[in-house]
Structures are given as structure tokens and as C-alpha cells.
């Protein structure tokens, strides 16, 4: 068997716990063609350039396919897989109910509720000395939040969790097994779409102030969202809203426990968590790859020509540690300033929920740091979820001496 390439090693599950040394190898050729035809981009400046390049499409129907090959599914649901002007319109219609310019206080107003949810979750483990950060805190927290925000019943979690997981696990770079992954995803996507479509149908009779109600009822200069668009947009927000933040909070806790002196600093310096979360997004981000872009034209970049129709994978996590861009890239510097990272991507597809994810991570990490007494890792590295694209621990077991009571 031929020795596998750096890219293949990154995809291999055995390297999930620490892909960073492989990323350094990858960056030696910032734009590199792989065996399967994917062009993997790992340099910071090349990634930023391509994320702002109108010759790049997010619509995989633009792939050049050999004649006779089957058409695969078309990627993730919703505007994440579309190009302007369709993308811009759908994103505007969704943003209207989520953030500025029309709902600027929406996320900020959630803050007291976010704090309360985290405090309750930590109260729930107060009598234990062993905690699974994933199952006990990092997963239930963002799920509760996205359910309330979207207007999805929290008690349905056991139903949509399976679909959301299947979709999340299907995301990742590489073309070799993509058709198979997309087949598996299609079923989950259909079921989730039907679930949200049904929910929207119900909501139509009884509108509330949740996002789903907004998507259903608004009509303005951009027209209204079709029921099908409501279902896919709702699916996208539900999946993205709870399959990524869990990794950010878990990666954050893991990183803090690997640098235990930081825990005291977070207690003493309330502003520090702001910068710590940015550094986490650079150093241990939840999303490692954007793996769904396509070249609409031959694109010359970093001495390579990406041919028209080729799939492109952007290695965000490699770019954020590019020594050409950032000093001491492999050091976790919790108060790093002017931190320009690719944790949420860049350009028109910049993470829709970034402000919410930031707030959730800031609140979760400061509460955990404040209340866990002498926390330590049970296993390091922890077991990881399979995806190389959305990377994070499956479980993160820790032991504590106790949990400090909430002081009002």
C-alpha cells in the first residue's frame, strides 16, 4: 500500500486528537491538489482570498463531473449551499429576526437567560465528583438555547438529535467517500425537513416571537420565505446551532484544563474570557474545514491553478495557525489581541450564529471556571467524534473536588 498523503492522514480517525502537526505539513503547499481531485487550501492568506473570491461557488451543482457519473445530493440544507443573489436574499430574510439591522438587541437580550441555563446545568451536577462536560453542559446548553430561539419544543430533542448528528457527521472534506456520506445525509435531511415543515405548519396558526414564526410570517421588499425555504432554513439553524457550539465549549474546557493556571486567571480577570474565546476559535476551533466550495473558473493562487469545476476544501484550522499570519501560532495565548482568525470563516458565508456562539462560550467557560473546584481531566486526549470537518470530543470526563454554589 502506498504511504498515505498528509491529507489522507488528516481524514484518518487516528489523527483526530491532534491534527495540528499534520496541518503544519499541509501548509508547506498552501494550495495542494489531492488524489481525489480536491484542492486543499491551508494558508491563511489563500483561504481569506478564496472566501472573498466571487469565482468560488458554494453550490456543488457547479462541480465538473465526469460524464455518466451520478449526481450527488447538493450539500447542506439552506442558504449555506447557495450563491448570491439567492443566498443574500435568504440570509437577509433570516437575519431580520436574529440580528441587526432589524433585531439588534435579540441576542444581547438573551444573556440573562443564557446565564440562568448554564447555572441550572451546573447546579444539576453539583453533587457529583465526575462530570461529562459534553453530556452534562456543553451539549444541553446550546440545544436548549437554539430550541427557545427557533421555537422548537425542547422535548423533541431525542427525535431531531439523531438527524442533526447524522448531518453533522456527514460533513467533511474529501471526495472519495462523499457519495456514500451524502446518501446517508439525505435521509436525515429529509426527515428533519419534514419535522420542521410540520412544526412551521402548526406555528402558522399560532405565531409567537420565535425565529420560526418570523420566518413564516414576514413579507417585505425581499418577498416572503416559501414553506420549503422555511423548512430548510430552520433545519440549517437547528443543526448549526447545536452541533458546533458544543465543540467550542468542550474544546474550551479541555484547553483550560490543559492550562490549569488559566482557571484562576479567568476567576480574577472577568474580561479575560472575551479574548480567551477568540483564541479558542483560532487555536481549537469547532469547524476545521469548509469542504463544499467549487471553482467557477480556473483560479491561479499560490503557484497552483485550481481548475474550473474542481472541489475546494478550505482548512480553516490550519490557516488560523499559519506562522505567516500569526506570531507563535501553536501557543495558546488567552489574552492575544488583534486576533484575526478563521474560526467562523469569512466573507458572505461568515457564521450566521457567531454572536450567539461567542456569548454562549463566554458564559459557559466563565461559569465553569468559577464554580468547578480543582477540575482535572480523567483521560487526555478524550475520545473524539468521527468527523474531521466538525471536530470535537464525544465525551470529556473530568473530576472535581466539588462545585461552588451560585452566589447571587
Amino acid at each position: 500500500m502506498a504511504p498515505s498523503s498528509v491529507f489522507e492522514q488528516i481524514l484518518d480517525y487516528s489523527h483526530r486528537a491532534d491534527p495540528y502537526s499534520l496541518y503544519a505539513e499541509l501548509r508547506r503547499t498552501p494550495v495542494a491538489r489531492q488524489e481525489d481531485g480536491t484542492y486543499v487550501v491551508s494558508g491563511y492568506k489563500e483561504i481569506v482570498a478564496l472566501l472573498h473570491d466571487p469565482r468560488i461557488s458554494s453550490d456543488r451543482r457547479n462541480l465538473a463531473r465526469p460524464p455518466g457519473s451520478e449526481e450527488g445530493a447538493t450539500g447542506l440544507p439552506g442558504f449555506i449551499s447557495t450563491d448570491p443573489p439567492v443566498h443574500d436574499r435568504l440570509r437577509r430574510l433570516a437575519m431580520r429576526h436574529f440580528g441587526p439591522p432589524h433585531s439588534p438587541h435579540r441576542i444581547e437580550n438573551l444573556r440573562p437567560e443564557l446565564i440562568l441555563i448554564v447555572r441550572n446545568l451546573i447546579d444539576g451536577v453539583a453533587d457529583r465528583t465526575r462530570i461529562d462536560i459534553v453530556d452534562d453542559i456543553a451539549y444541553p446548553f446550546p440545544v436548549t438555547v437554539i430550541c427557545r430561539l427557533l421555537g422548537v419544543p425542547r422535548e423533541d430533542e431525542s427525535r431531531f438529535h439523531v438527524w442533526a448528528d447524522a448531518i453533522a457527521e456527514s460533513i467533511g472534506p474529501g471526495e472519495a467517500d462523499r457519495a456514500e456520506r451524502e446518501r446517508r445525509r439525505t435521509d436525515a435531511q429529509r426527515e428533519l425537513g419534514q419535522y420542521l415543515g410540520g412544526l412551521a405548519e402548526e406555528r402558522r396558526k399560532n405565531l409567537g416571537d420565535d425565529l420560526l414564526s418570523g420566518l413564516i410570517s414576514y413579507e417585505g421588499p425581499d418577498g416572503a420565505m416559501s414553506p420549503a425555504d422555511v423548512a430548510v432554513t430552520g433545519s440549517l439553524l437547528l443543526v448549526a446551532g447545536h452541533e458546533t457550539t458544543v465543540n467550542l465549549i468542550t474544546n474550551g474546557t479541555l484547553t483550560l484544563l490543559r492550562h490549569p493556571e488559566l482557571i484562576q486567571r479567568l476567576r480574577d480577570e472577568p474580561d479575560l474570557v472575551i479574548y480567551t474565546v477568540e483564541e479558542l476559535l483560532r487555536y481549537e476551533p469547532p469547524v476545521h474545514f469548509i469542504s463544499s466550495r467549487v471553482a467557477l473558473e480556473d483560479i491561479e493562487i499560490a503557484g497552483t491553478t485550481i481548475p474550473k469545476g474542481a472541489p475546494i476544501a478550505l482548512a480553516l484550522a490550519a490557516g488560523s495557525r499559519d506562522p505567516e499570519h500569526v506570531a507563535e501560532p501553536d501557543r495558546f495565548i488567552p489574552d492575544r489581541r488583534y486576533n484575526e482568525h478563521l474560526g467562523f470563516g469569512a466573507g458572505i458565508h461568515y457564521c450566521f450564529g457567531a454572536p450567539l456562539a461567542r456569548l454562549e462560550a463566554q458564559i459557559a467557560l466563565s461559569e465553569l471556571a468559577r464554580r468547578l473546584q480543582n477540575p482535572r481531566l480523567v483521560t487526555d486526549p478524550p475520545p473524539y467524534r468521527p468527523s474531521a470537518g466538525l471536530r470535537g470530543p464525544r465525551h470529556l470526563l473530568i473530576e472535581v473536588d466539588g462545585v461552588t454554589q451560585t452566589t447571587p
Partner: protein
Amino acid sequence: MRVIVDLTRCQGYGQCAFLAPDVFTMNGEEALLYDTDADEAQREHVLRAAAACPVQAIHLDRMATQHRGMRTGAVVSPPVDDGFRKTGRIVIVGASLAGARAAGVLRRDGFTGSLTLIGDEPYEPYDRPPLSKQVLVGRVPADHTLLPRLREVDAEWLPGVAAAGLDLAARTVRLSDGREVGFDRVLIATGARARPWPNPEEAALDGVLPLRTIEEASSLRERLAARPRRVLVIGAGFTGSEVASVCRDLDLPVTVVERGPAPLVGALGGVIGDVAADMQRAHGVDLRCGVTVEALEGDADGRFRAARLSDGSTVEADVAVVALGAIRNVEWLRDSGLAAGVWGVACDAGCRAVDINGLVTDDVFVAGDVARFPHPVYNFQFMTLEHWGNAVAQAEIAAHNMLSDQAHRWPHLSLPVFWSNQFGTSIKSVGVPTFADEVVIAHGSVEERRFVALYGYRGRLTAAVTFDRAMWLEFYQGLIERAAPFPPDFRATDRPETLRPVPAEVPERLEATQVTVMVTGHDPAERRATLVHGDR
């Protein structure tokens, strides 16, 4: 706390407006408005907002002197071995954006000699762009626009005193109060001032106001707050258009009178000017193009009450805003021997001033609105740019070169970039849109006023202008820098089936110079140029 957003970098991601919604607001999709002096109670929110900015364009209290990337350390220039860096004397004339920034960069790069800043205004350096936006609309008091300190610049600062002359032989700057300040190297950054209404009696009417300084912005704000019957804006350049936009935000009736065929024509040409005209009218502006104001009329108490236009009509209004562009502050250099005139102070691409013979000087540098420099990308044409981003970039180059020997000097090669926020729309530009014969809409929709317009000159891409599409600007900046062909020949998202370039309708630029150069002498060693003031 002092807040400044480098809107040259801002791409309208809106993260700040999520995280600190009481300090940063999106006025429309991409146009950002912010409090330049945020309440201390907002501190935590502002920190969150600044940390979250995807392009790190938000500066608090201090201003980073390195914009690109995260490497914020000083760029170490090789020391000039004459000891100048340690004990030299630098005087900066002009204490606004360019002057203040140059001072910060000089200290950052290790200049430890004496540093003097001369400014004719009584304030610390302040930021002008908010004056025609946040300040006029009443969100921020005019005197709360001070620039974040570059760092605690260790400099002797002489506020409220103008420079009156420059003696190159004696190496002194003469001040209006008679004092003289000696220097080894001097930076000229005296900028520009608002062009006044040409008739002094009419200009003196109560209610006739220019807009450039803190005081002028304060007075105009007071007038607008008093809810005048109507505001007349004379001139539809960027300042005039922004004033009109604020008037509409305040629901004040406003008439804009523009000599040219459309607003912004001088900067963006007629095609995009027409888009701006539609935008103004859609927002309720009474826009009159191809018309001039012939006279401003006052009542018995000397209060402005009406304007008579060249088409015979009359506009009754309580306030007239004179937005006729700027005059460069060069009068103090009249007898200096430098090539200083209404065009500005000529310099090379390294910011070294040129004397009236066209020779480059060694110890006199120029930066900001007053500098007239050759741009290699645009056929080495000399240009003066009244843009925020140019003042910043040029000040960096000038300061670097003041500390460097010939072998280590840098050229000022950055493409011009500017922005304007008006009518809930963010307009941004890169390159020189007036250096064009054709223009084409490359992405988006003119009807929605969300688009990218590209400008070309003889088959080469020379500029790009976006309306609420700032994220695509850098891509086209790269193409302009690489002299890419025009019109673009590649497939791209959100692009019409076929691109249809049309004539750019760029105005001819024949400036009245008010100065004539005469050459005397025959022998090459004797031939000299002299400036004769007054047009001929």
C-alpha cells in the same frame, strides 16, 4: 472610552452591532454608525464587540499603528547612522489624522529625539468622518470625536497656533504668534479646510455654514436640532450628500443643489452618480442637478432665508450648508520655495517634498490631504486624496522615510480607498474611479442599490465601487493591483449573463491653478522655476 472604527477595513459583518447594540448600530445592511466616545458603563460590551470584529477594525483608547494582520510589533528600520534617530529634531505641522499618526509611528519605530506637533485647532487630534454622520444626527457631541491616542506620544504639542512660514535655509517653522521652531526634518500635514461661499457678505449671513471642523459641526448640529423649515445643501459631493442624508434621517425637508449632472459625479462619474441621484430622491431629497446657486438672501436681521438658483427658481430655507469641497492649507508655504499651490504640496512617492524647480528635497516630507504625489498605478499622475485611509497610510510611509536612508525608503503605493455612509447605504471605493473611460455593473442589482461597479481605462481595470457589497472590494483591489483586463472575462456569482460596459461619464479635470510657473535662465546651472501667483 474612545472608539474608532477603521471603516476602510470594515466589511459590514455587523458583529459589533450584535454584541454592543447600544454603541454600534447598522444603519441599513452594511453602514455602521457608532459612538465615538462610549459610556464607561458600556465598557464590557465594547470590549466584546472589538474582540469579535472579523477584520479587527475597532480600536479602543489607543490606535494600533499596524493595520494588516496580527503582527503588531514595530517594523524595525535600519538606524540612520548619523545619530538623527537618537537626537534629531522633528517638527510636524498639522495635528490632525496624518500628523498625529506620523507622530505615533515615529515613536513606535524608535525615534527618541525631540518631536513637536503644531496644530491650529485647540483640540487634540480628532476624527472628521463622524462629524457629517453621528454628530449631525445628534448621536455624539461634536467634541467627543477625539482620536484614540496612538500611544502616549511623547511630543511637545503646540495647540491653537498656526504655522505662518517655513524657512528651509534656516530650518525653522515660523508660527503665527511670531515664535520660531527649529527642525532637522519637518513633516507638512496641514490638510485642507472647507471652501467658503465665494460671496463674503452672503457667507456671513446667519445660517450659512460650512462643515469641516468640530466647531462647524457643532453649529450645524444646533441648527438642525432647532428643526429648520428646510435645509439647503450647496454641492452634492460626499459631504453634501451625507448632510442631506442626515436631514432625511431627522425628517427635515432638504434641497440639494448640484452644479453637475448628478451627485458624486466628481468622484464616481455620471453612471453611478445617477444611481446616487435615484437614491436621494427615493429618500425624499429635493435634488436639483445642473443648477447653481446664484445668490443667498437674508432678511433684515441678517438671517439667511432663501437662495436664488440659476434656473430662476427660489428655495426658501433656514440653513444653507456650503459643501463645495476643500481648499488645501498651503498659504503658509507661499515663500518657502516648495512646489506648493492650490493643488497641494508636491512630493515624490516617498513623501519627500518637491521644490518649485521640481527637485526632491531631503528633509521636508508631506502627508495627508495636502500632499500631491505621483501614483505609479495611474500613469504616475500626481494626485491629492482627501481620504481617511490615505492620510493613515501616507503618514506611515512619511514617518518611516523620515527615519530611513535612501536605500531603505518605502514608496506610498497603496491604492486609494474611501467610504461614505448615506441613506442607509455603505458606499466604498478602491482605485481611482475617475481614471476610467468605461464602467460596468459586475455583480448585484442597481435597482436594489446593492452592487459592485467596475471601472476600466483602455481595457485595464482601474477602480471598483460597491454599494452595500463591501466584502467583494478586496478581490477587485487585487485585480487592480495586477492590472487585470477590463471588462472582467470570468464567470462569477451574482453576475448578469452578459456584461455591458457603458461610458463612465467621468468629468474632465481642468483645475484653475491660480499659480503659474515661469522659467528663467539659459545655462542648465542657472535655469530656475518661479511661481507667479494669480491665474494667467
